[in-house]
């Protein structure tokens, strides 16, 4: 018995249409259920006091202000370090590298770095930044680990952006007698900025969500970090501790909702940027 004979092609087309539509609906439902549940359970906990006060009794009461500051701190450090490195690498790839083997090798390197599990970054952060470099459990160690994780995203997105810049731009610049460097800094980079910003926001979205990579580098202090060498506790780590140590379910929901709202804002702004950029490039 041939399976294909069971139904006529037209019937199986109809059946499959339903299955395909269902797959889309299921995917959408998964997102709605998770987002909806966390936000609905979390919103009642969120108010100005929750956002702007320090936790009391190790997070049972009070707010998450020090965690918001820690998250901002480590994420900004990560972006400040990873952006020049990632963009520099992308410029090298699109403007200088000629050896195809080298190009492939560098891309493979970025892919590998992007695929290393965050817990390995966590161990490396502990062994390298905290112990070997002697930075200790601090915002700086956490930010440095996140910078390494953010690097491949910024590099990959910037490379795609730079290679999509029309060569007529460059030719025009060379035709006016500009040097290669002048062309890169005055023509190529300005045109690529929206794309690069998109890459940076994508990287930030990941960095701000990361807990496993920083849990052994950043310490886990409940105090507001002031200097780079103070320990801190970013939001995802706080959520992890609240949930697994059963400290406060209510505050855990609140923290989770805050995290999700941040990620949603970042995702929406990436999309708006990409859309504007595409319109501009297409000349519409």
């Amino acid at each position: 018995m041939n399976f294909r004979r069971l139904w006529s092609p037209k019937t199986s087309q109809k059946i499959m249409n339903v299955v395909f539509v269902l797959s889309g609906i299921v995917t959408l439902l998964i997102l709605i259920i998770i987002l909806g549940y966390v936000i609905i359970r979390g919103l009642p906990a969120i108010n100005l006091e929750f956002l702007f006060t320090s936790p009391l009794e190790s997070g049972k009461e009070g707010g998450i202000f020090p965690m918001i500051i820690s998250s901002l701190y480590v994420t900004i450090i990560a972006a400040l370090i990873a952006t020049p490195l990632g963009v520099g690498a992308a410029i090298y790839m699109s403007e200088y590298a000629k050896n195809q083997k080298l190009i492939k090798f560098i891309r493979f390197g970025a892919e590998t770095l992007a695929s290393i599990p965050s817990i390995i970054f966590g161990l490396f952060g502990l062994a390298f930044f905290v112990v070997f470099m002697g930075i200790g459990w601090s915002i700086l160690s956490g930010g440095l680990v996140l910078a390494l994780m953010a690097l491949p995203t910024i590099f990959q997105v910037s490379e795609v952006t730079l290679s999509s810049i029309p060569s007529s731009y460059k030719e025009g610049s060379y035709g006016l007698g500009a040097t290669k460097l002048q062309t890169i800094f005055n023509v190529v980079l300005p045109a690529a900025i929206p794309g690069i910003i998109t890459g940076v926001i994508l990287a930030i979205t990941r960095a701000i969500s990361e807990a496993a990579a920083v849990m052994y580098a950043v310490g886990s202090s409940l105090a507001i970090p002031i200097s780079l060498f103070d320990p801190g506790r970013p939001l995802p780590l706080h959520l992890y501790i609240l949930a697994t140590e059963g400290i406060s379910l209510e505050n855990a929901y609140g923290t989770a909702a805050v995290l999700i709202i941040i990620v949603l804002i970042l995702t929406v702004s990436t999309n708006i940027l990409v859309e504007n950029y595409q319109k501009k490039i297409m000349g519409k």
Partner: protein
Amino acid sequence: MNREKINEFLIEKGLFITAIFSIIIIFTILIFIVMEALPAFQEYGFFRFMFGMEWSPNDDNFGVFTMILGSIFVTFLALMMAVPLSLLCAFFMEEIAPNKVKIFLKPVIQTLAGIPSVVYGFFGLTVLVPLVREYFGGTGFSIFTASLILAVMILPTIISVSQDAIKSVPHDFKEASFGLGSTNWQTIRLIIFPAALPGIVTAIILGIGRAIGETLAVIMVAGNVVQIPGSIFDPVRTLTTNIALEMGYATGLHYNALFGTAVILFIIIIILLIIANYIQNKHGMDIGGGTL
């Protein structure tokens, strides 16, 4: 004039260093992880470490094989759930759905990819664990629960990379198939799927990598007992969770053995990447990173 030349030269070299920086980092990570793991390998023996069934740090027993099996179990079960759904969804978005639906679903996939893994774990802990406990018995902390969460987490990876693969199938293939009177489903099944298969395999491998490497979401729902599970509703401990659970208080050889666990994890990831790269090169495709 000369100074300008020197400047250009220096900047080119500087940019070159940023370009190979990723590779420098990878080697630094590798060296540090291996160095910290070495005492465990030397004292305990690499093969005994990798294939030993007993993990009891108090008695200086460091066999990680049960954890390797644990990682394989949860990843395999997660794939069984995620692959069919994500392939259907990828084909739906590329070949079936009207443009408006596609534009609507794209941010949905992006958002799924953007949800922090701790939030997934927290959702699993507060929602899925009680549900599994009620309907399937046991504590609710199980291989099944962990795979369910992992399946959702790898959906966006598999969907978006498969979409790239489907998109890169030449239009002529489809047109020829339609021209012969095939239906859409026949074209997808007999023409597009085989042509996109290498890319789809790459997508699945990237999904495997993500599932094997996930830590905190799994810790929160897997129960973390070191044992060979008897059923999918038994608790399990994976390689990643072993590290995260015990690193906080490990000292001496125990500390080294946890780095050893990371080395095993590293080796698995590198093997997966090499396979993915081999497939890509062999079939002459370029799938952009899977990050977008």
